[in-house]
């Protein structure tokens, strides 16, 4: 057993020191009736080479951007990850450590998270950010809970254009908390309908949640929403499913958002079939003591040197137990580290340029597809790197034909929007070359027949 060091002699020596006759004896407190009397029925142990062969075989049965031209987004994005990211997060001092409970031997993790918190504040324009959460959807749910706590109100408006997983997660978290969730429809631009918003916003509202960009890729009018929300004392929550957009779009804080949450996967994390990703959570100072999750703060050591510690733990469950601001205990430390490294590599200019490339590629694709016979762009709102297409027949059928050309052309929307059987979501990033886009257009034209 390559992971278990005990030799027979070690075991004998240790049992003698314990004063036990056998390893079996050590389990004496487990009543016989509580014992399993047979071996676990699991496949036999694999050698390392067999294991790799088995996993390689499984891995080959999955499509990737290496095997297909890929235009999938919808909350998970195919961006380039510089090799330095993986090199650095693979340093075992980072990835084999746990939560920095002992700050004197955890300054690496702690400083990196402090930097992460700073980067998120810079991107969103907010005052404070936590050390990360499971993902964008759960961060969004925590934001709704925080808004309800902070406002002591029980009505929450969710844009129907918000990512469906985010809406579903909010619903699950709120399931037994006596909160009322109201969906607000969108208009022809693909943005949340301001009239519906105005009609539903009132003094009972704890929060209004908008995607930025939303699930359709459309850039919501946060400014107007913020004015409406703040007029009624409700928190405006901006939920960012594609954070690369923040390299180009006005920061939500500037437009009046009170809480900004989102998904950090675009910042250096692999697609990995949906996880682990990286929820981020940023707020204004007013909500500091209501924040869920871990926080890292700067302080001094006994010699007056700068250092970092976990702080404001009195909000957390290991101190506050049932009165904690959240039950979250871990964060996505390594994912936050990856994002910090990614953003440091891109830097001020690289982030902007990458965002601009995404914008340009998507604009080109949108224009080309709009020119295809049978295809239209149903929403008029401005988009960043994804957009909805309406095809001439069922989206699933069109996309299946496209798939036969080795292209993953988009995500059919009908699962979440039954009224949109012919629509699908197309995402274009800096990873798609012009000839990929042209191939998609050709395949769509063919798939429409």
């Amino acid at each position: 057993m390559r992971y278990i060091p005990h030799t027979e002699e070690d075991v004998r020596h240790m049992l003698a020191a314990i004063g036990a006759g056998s390893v079996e004896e050590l389990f004496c407190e487990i009543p016989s009736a509580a014992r399993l009397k047979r071996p676990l029925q699991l496949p036999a142990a694999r050698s390392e080479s067999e294991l790799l062969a088995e996993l390689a075989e499984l891995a080959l049965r999955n499509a990737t951007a290496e095997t297909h031209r890929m235009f999938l987004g919808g909350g998970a994005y195919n961006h380039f990850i510089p090799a330095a990211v993986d090199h650095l997060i693979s340093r075992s001092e980072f990835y084999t450590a746990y939560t920095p409970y002992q700050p004197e031997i955890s300054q690496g993790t702690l400083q990196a998270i402090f930097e992460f918190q700073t980067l998120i504040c810079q991107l969103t324009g907010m005052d404070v950010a936590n050390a990360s959460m499971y993902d964008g959807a759960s961060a969004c749910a925590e934001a709704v809970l925080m808004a309800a706590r902070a406002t002591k109100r029980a009505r929450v408006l969710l844009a129907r254009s918000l990512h469906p997983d985010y809406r579903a997660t909010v619903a699950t978290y709120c399931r037994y908390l006596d909160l009322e969730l109201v969906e607000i429809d969108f208009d022809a631009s693909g943005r949340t309908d301001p009239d519906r918003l105005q009609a539903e916003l009132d003094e009972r509202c704890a929060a209004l949640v908008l995607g930025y960009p939303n699930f359709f890729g459309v850039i919501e009018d946060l400014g107007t929403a913020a004015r409406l929300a703040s007029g009624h004392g409700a928190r405006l929550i901006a939920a960012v499913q594609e954070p690369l957009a923040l390299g180009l779009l006005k920061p939500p804080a500037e437009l009046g958002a009170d809480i900004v949450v989102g998904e950090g996967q675009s910042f250096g994390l692999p697609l990995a079939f949906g996880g682990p990703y990286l929820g981020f959570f940023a707020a204004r100072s007013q909500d500091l003591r209501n924040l869920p999750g871990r926080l890292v703060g700067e302080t001094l050591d006994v010699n007056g040197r700068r250092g970092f510690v976990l702080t404001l733990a009195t909000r957390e469950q290991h101190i506050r137990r049932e009165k904690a601001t959240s039950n979250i205990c871990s964060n996505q430390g390594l994912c936050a580290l990856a994002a910090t490294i990614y953003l440091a590599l891109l830097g001020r200019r690289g982030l902007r340029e990458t965002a601009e490339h995404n914008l340009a590629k998507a604009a080109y694709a949108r224009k080309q597809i709009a020119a295809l016979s049978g295809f239209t762009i149903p929403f008029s709102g401005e988009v960043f790197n994804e957009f909805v297409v309406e095809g001439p027949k069922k989206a699933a059928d069109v996309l299946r034909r496209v798939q036969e050309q080795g292209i993953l052309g988009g995500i059919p929307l009908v699962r979440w929007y039954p009224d949109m059987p012919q629509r699908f979501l197309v995402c274009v990033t800096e990873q798609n070359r012009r000839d990929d886009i042209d191939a998609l257009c050709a395949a769509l034209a063919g798939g429409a027949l």
Partner: protein
Amino acid sequence: LNEKLLFEHSDKGRKGYSLPALDVPAAQLPAELVRTDIRGFPELSELDVVRHFTRLSTWNYGVDSGFYPLGSCTMKYNPKVNEVACRLPGFAGLHPHAPEDLSQGALELMYQLQQDLAETSGLPAVTLQPGAGAHGELAGMLMIRAWHEARGSRRGKVLIPDTAHGTNPATAALCGYQVIPVSSEGVLRAAAVAELMDEDVAALMITNPNTLGLFESEITEICRIVHERGGLVYCDGANLNALMGISRPGDLGIDVMHFNLHKTFATPHGGGGPGAGPVGVTAELAPFLPVPVVVRDEEGIRLDFERPQSIGTLKGFYGHFGVLVRAFAYIRSLGPDGLRKATEMAVLNANYLRARLEETYHLPYKARSLHEVVFSDRKLAGGCRTLDLAKRLIDYGFHPPTIYFPLVVAGAIMIEPTESESLESIDEFCEAMLAIAREAETQPELLKEAPRRTRVGRLDETRAARRPRLRWDGGGQVGEGQE
């Protein structure tokens, strides 16, 4: 030597990234949508960034650095081949919205892992979606509540022993439950449960073995009592490393349990995450599992979203897939015999360590330990406390144990060696513990002024909380440091 913050390093115009030439026309958004520059954002070359994080890493301590007996966290060895496995392009590059027929390898792995966890726990239905143990607790308690409500029952209370992890009460509260604490005497007595159990109690949340490292020997009887009065039993699976192949929670009467893949199944802790917290339930609770569930039918393996009684979705997509790959690789590497052996050696290590230290350190509970052992600082001389001991261990080159938990032991020192550690490694740790106990008698300042060999000395946590500085803001640092 010190290392500045990223932002303090930055120089205008540097970058560590390059893009291909843009091969389509540039595009622009309306000006009112576009931000100005990001003030203070880093500007660094690739070497700047690599050095920065390489240096930061050297201020951390991981399992690969040395013995890391953090109780309740199961800091076992993280196999390197698992890191290769999860990075295979077919796993790392798979988009969650890829069509099911082009995701069959990933779905197969998830399906097999569900079955493996079911077999290990004796709980037949498993969801892989929760992102961590606490998230699994949330899933589990929501299912318990949904089960009750499906039966028209609106119970409002949950029993939680005093040895529980803090996440247990926090989770119960998040599900709208009132928390009723139960006193234990090291192990939870069936009588204590019987006394508090009534028709308003939805569930008991228990950890087994508990946070003292003791098997809950009355667990079967406790489950019977709770079930008899219409309740369910939730088991916090953080300590499953003590039971693999030995005893299955499902066989004992547990209804719901979460797994900590990063503890029991060797996935890296990542400096605080990501972990993964799958949940196993009885067949009766299976309809309430979060969506999607991975199911197999004639056509292959698919994600089942059509589950009308489901509690819903707990997060985006299907779970921390990259973590699941590592756990799967671990289970396949050990096989049934290896998993049992891991448990046996984890328990042997804990008991050996206990035997070497129990004359010197106060052991509040005497029952046979399983995978971890909890001492207290009561016998520590020179006015030294658990915190001092912990900091002094750092000077000896070890990561300290968990301290001041569980709360039922004042000055608790909670040591979990795991099966990965060799006899030599545990002996070295014990020698250090014994030496520190002697130092406490003769030179207590060595403990109180520890650690001395780290980059920073003890940090002022009160200051951090009183005047929170949670981000760099372009100013100087809190105080100017000295070399």
